[in-house]
């Protein structure tokens, strides 16, 4: 199965590279030139040396010709080498760019279901690290493999051309080098695995203890922590020493085998020279071949693992690219313009996971301009309703209609721009405060932005910031408090004012006094607009036209605040528990 998967991955990669067919050909040609000419140099050097027989017996004329040849070959080789690496760079980075763009485009069209159910770190590592690994390993590996094999073949050919006997000797000794290298590599591998395993254990311990240093200190747990750490640290020392040592004897060992080959060639060559079968120059060419001959073997074994990693990474990237996108808007989809804001849920069934039913047969009619509040304990499906309204998820059965149109027959863009949404998780972009407020309306004027900020009670803290509206919000809004971030999210919606509003725990991080002030702005904003409000602070929803009390995916009670209290049901219980002691 693995091989099959590899095969299809390789096919796709070749497909991607296919666009750059001619570049690849040129690169391969340059690689060929480089290898052949590089190998030709020792022969030329050998010939030149043969012209230098002894005092008074130097053949300057022939040598001059050879040296000139050498000069030309050197320049051509260097040029070919440069062109090759340049082309390879171009191909690599272009292919990476293509794939990365494709992956990112996929990200924008993936259904929320995928994004919610996969670790973000994993998706990101596919787009960043895996694609990098792929480019490094696969394309670099490919050229190295190609030149490596070519070098081995070329060396063999040149050696056999000079002297078959000694060449045969070199071929016989070669396996020794491979054997030593793989012998060590196998042993090293297990040590490295142990080392990285121990490192992993240690990192998670460090993350846990240092990441929560304040708790450690609060419980005066420092000594215990130190003890735990030192135990694992000692273990790491032992494995670290072994792994480092064993991996570092690879080089000396292969170097030793190399020097054995060198000695053999030296002796055999010298004896052959004594018998007139070889010139001194040819011996010197042989020696330099013997020196570089084993190098590509070691490289190739490294390249093979690189290639395997690269293939695995490529497979992971392709997996992401192959994920199904959101169902596209249907061709007859209506564009919702100036929605009135009447929202109807008819017999809606939905669950994230087929085995765990969540929302079942939910019905709701939100007339234009009404305020609908949704309350209930955690996990009852409040936020799910919002996912459905915004069509982040599609209903399993039943329908949701806006102004009488099933939302599956409305373009997503026009549907979503009819909604203004403030969520509990306050997401802001890296960029200036101004850009963030204008996120939904990039062409808003300065005046509109400031007005929106004022209405959201964000203007005063923004003006107190060092750069005012130009203050850059760092990643995740690290330089703002949770409450300030929420105010900016509110300002962002205040600027667009679409016909339907969704406020999901929109004021949960704002202290209640500020909230009270914002409520006024909210009230103004909600005038004439259909709004859905989710909150766990019951005080914020008393004014709603309808309160839906949800529990386990069902609406169990429905009515105004007063009605529900007098019914003395679940809502009344929730409400009263706020004040009990």
């Amino acid at each position, binding site marked *: 199965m693995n091989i099959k998967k590899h095969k299809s991955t390789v096919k796709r990669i070749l497909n991607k590279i296919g666009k750059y067919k001619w570049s690849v050909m040129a690169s391969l040609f340059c690689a060929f030139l480089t290898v052949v000419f590089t190998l030709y140099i020792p022969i030329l050097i050998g010939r030149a040396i043969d012209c230098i027989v002894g005092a008074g017996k*130097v053949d300057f004329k022939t*040598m001059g010709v050879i040296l000139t040849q050498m000069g030309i070959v050197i320049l051509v080789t260097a040029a070919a080498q440069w062109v090759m690496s340049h082309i390879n760079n171009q191909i690599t980075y272009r292919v990476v760019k293509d794939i990365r763009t494709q992956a990112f485009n996929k990200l*924008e069209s993936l259904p929320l279901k995928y994004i919610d159910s996969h670790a973000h770190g994993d998706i990101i590592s596919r787009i960043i690290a895996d694609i990098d690994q792929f480019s490094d390993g696969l394309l670099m590996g490919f050229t190295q493999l190609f030149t490596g094999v070519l070098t081995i073949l070329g060396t063999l050919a040149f050696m056999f051309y000079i002297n078959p006997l000694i060449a045969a000797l070199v071929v016989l000794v070669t396996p020794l080098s491979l054997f030593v290298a793989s012998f060590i590599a196998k042993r090293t591998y297990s040590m490295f695995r142990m080392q990285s395993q121990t490192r992993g254990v240690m990192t998670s311990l460090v993350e846990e203890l240092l990441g929560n240093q304040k708790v450690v200190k609060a419980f005066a747990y420092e000594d215990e922590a130190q003890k735990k750490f030192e135990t694992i640290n000692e273990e790491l020392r032992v494995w670290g020493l072994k792994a480092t040592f064993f991996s570092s004897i690879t080089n000396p060992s292969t170097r030793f085998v190399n020097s054995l080959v060198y000695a053999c060639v030296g*002796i055999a060559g010298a004896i052959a020279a004594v018998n007139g079968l070889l010139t001194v120059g040819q011996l010197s060419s042989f020696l330099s071949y013997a020196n570089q001959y084993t190098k590509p073997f070691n490289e190739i074994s490294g390249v093979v693992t690189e290639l395997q990693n690269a293939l695995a990474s490529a497979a992971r990237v392709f997996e992401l690219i192959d994920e199904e996108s959101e169902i596209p808007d249907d061709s007859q989809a209506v564009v919702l313009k100036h929605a009135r804001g009447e929202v109807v849920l008819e017999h809606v069934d939905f669950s994230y996971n087929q085995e765990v039913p969540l929302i079942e047969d939910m019905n709701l009619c939100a007339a234009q301009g009404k305020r609908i509040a949704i309350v209930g304990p955690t996990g009852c499906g409040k936020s799910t309703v919002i996912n459905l309204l915004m069509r982040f998820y599609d209903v399993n059965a039943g329908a949701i209609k806006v102004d009488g149109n099933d939302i599956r027959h409305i373009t997503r863009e026009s549907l979503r721009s009819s909604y203004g949404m403030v969520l509990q998780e306050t997401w802001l972009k890296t960029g200036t405060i101004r850009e963030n407020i204008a996120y939904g309306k990039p062409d808003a004027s300065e005046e509109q932005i400031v007005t929106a900020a004022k209405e959201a009670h964000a203007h005063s803290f923004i003006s107190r910031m060092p750069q005012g509206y130009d203050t850059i919000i760092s990643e995740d809004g690290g330089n703002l408090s949770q409450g300030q971030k929420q105010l900016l999210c509110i300002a962002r919606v205040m600027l667009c004012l679409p016909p339907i509003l969704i406020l999901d725990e929109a004021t949960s*991080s704002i202290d209640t006094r500020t909230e009270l002030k914002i409520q006024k702005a909210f009230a103004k904003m909600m005038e004439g607009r259909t709004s859905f409000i989710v909150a766990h602070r019951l005080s914020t929803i008393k004014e709603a036209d309808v309160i839906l009390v949800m529990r386990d995916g069902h609406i169990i009670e429905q009515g105004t605040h007063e009605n529900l209290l007098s019914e003395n049901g679940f809502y009344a219980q929730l409400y009263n528990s706020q004040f009990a002691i």
Partner: protein
Amino acid sequence: MKKLLKYLSNYKRESILGPLFKLLEASFELLVPLVMATVIDIGIKNHDVTYILSMGGLLVVLGIIGLTCSITAQYFAAKAAAGFGTSLRNDLFAHINTLSYQEIDTIGTATLITRMTSDVNQVQSGVNLFLRLFLRSPFVVLGAMIMAFTIDIKAALIFVVSIPVLSAVVFGIMLYSMPLYKKVQMQLDRVLLAARENLGGVRVIRAFNRQNDEVRRFDEENGMLVKFQVFVGKISALMNPLTYVIINLAIIVLINTGANRVQTGNITQGQVVALVNYMSQILVELVKLANLIITISKALACANRISFVFTMEPGIKDTNHNHVKGKTDSPKVEFNQVSLFYQGAKAESLRGIGFCARKGETIGIIGGTGSGKSTLVNVIPRFYDVSQGSVRVDGIDVREYPQGQLREMVGIVPQKAVLFKGSIRENMQWGKKDASDEEIYRALTIAQAKEFVDEKGEGLDFLIQAGGKNLSGGQRQRLTIARAIVKNPQILILDDSASALDFATDARLRKAIKEETRDMTVFLVSQRASTIKNADRIVVLEDGRMAGCGKHGELMESCEVYREICLSQLSEKEVQ
């Protein structure tokens, strides 16, 4: 870096012997071309097969000695580096443990973790490489030149010229491209950021229909990245062809000069071969050296980051290490005109706070976000030192207690509910090392956690995953509360630690704490008026100042801020 060198001092022997053996190996390697030269000049010339064989034997012997030397060197280097890393880590960990909240806030835990893990690893492998290679490569380069001098001074001058030229090219390209690589890395980070933002903000982006803009932005960043990469690639691609040309041109010149010297009888053919060999050796070593310098400079940067942590002095130190006996007739906790400035802050976080809490009392602390509630309770166990005034526990300034004793008396439940990997029992025993199951169950019962722990089946043996991922937010909060209660502290601080609990559970929890732990002085920090409404005393904070202090009824009369908070949460009737 100097500071870190002391961790090598335990491995002095290894740190000296390692490089020494490496030099030995290099010396033997330098002899090889000379041996070959004699093979050519004596063995082949005189048709002396015995000589050739004995010289071949010598080559093998040189190889064996080289192998032994270098394996010994590698062992010493590995041992010294591993030992260095280990003791550095132990000390660093211990040092971080002495830092107070103030320093942790300044530097941030994320970077402490990287410094503790990957930075130390980098330095460790830097030390290893340094011991192995840093002497060897320059030695081989210089050694090759010196060997050339022993053969022929005129020919050796070619070395004198080509080594600096080669070095200039190799190091020039490296130095030029290094900052460029940094730029590439930074751009890659931007691409990463774009991807991460689009995952985290997927709902907002789609709600505002900004997908196309995001794709455009990503294309821009990605395009920039490729542009940088291609540019750096172009520069780095120069390295191989350039050095190749230089080395081989040098060889041409060398052969030409050698030919003249042989013609005049100054040197032999075999010696020319040896000279050519030396020239080839230089390039390999120079490239190794350049790579080594990059690794070492990275390791040095890491070492500096680590050194910086060591230079951070703990802001809070014990001045007194002896057990202090409190006064029984004083209030349990007393704030005397306390003010506090955070380092680098523009305004003070607390100003002129004064109130006291008697044994067994419950103190409620309320105020808006950023009003200083957490800061106020954090000065009790002396996580931060006050800038002015004093905090007394049992009538004695907290700065006079040893930190251990003070923290023994105080149990704090932080806002962020943190649990550690391990069983529930192990987590509970953080508070009291030898707590019995009975004690733990009592605490769990008070914290309203017993029910769900029992439901887990494994009870106290239930394994909590790192970060408490396999528990809900409310469950985590209740366990952290239980952990503090296991300690049976004299002072219990709940820093907004029931925010994920529903109102009913929150109420039951407060009731249980009140009934079960009558002698405990409890500080309740909350944004919910209902949580602190029935406290013995309520401290109302606004912008770091005390806006009021008293019972609910009194504050409703006298404190405008408190009244506003209550009215924003409770109805007129409930407020009464």
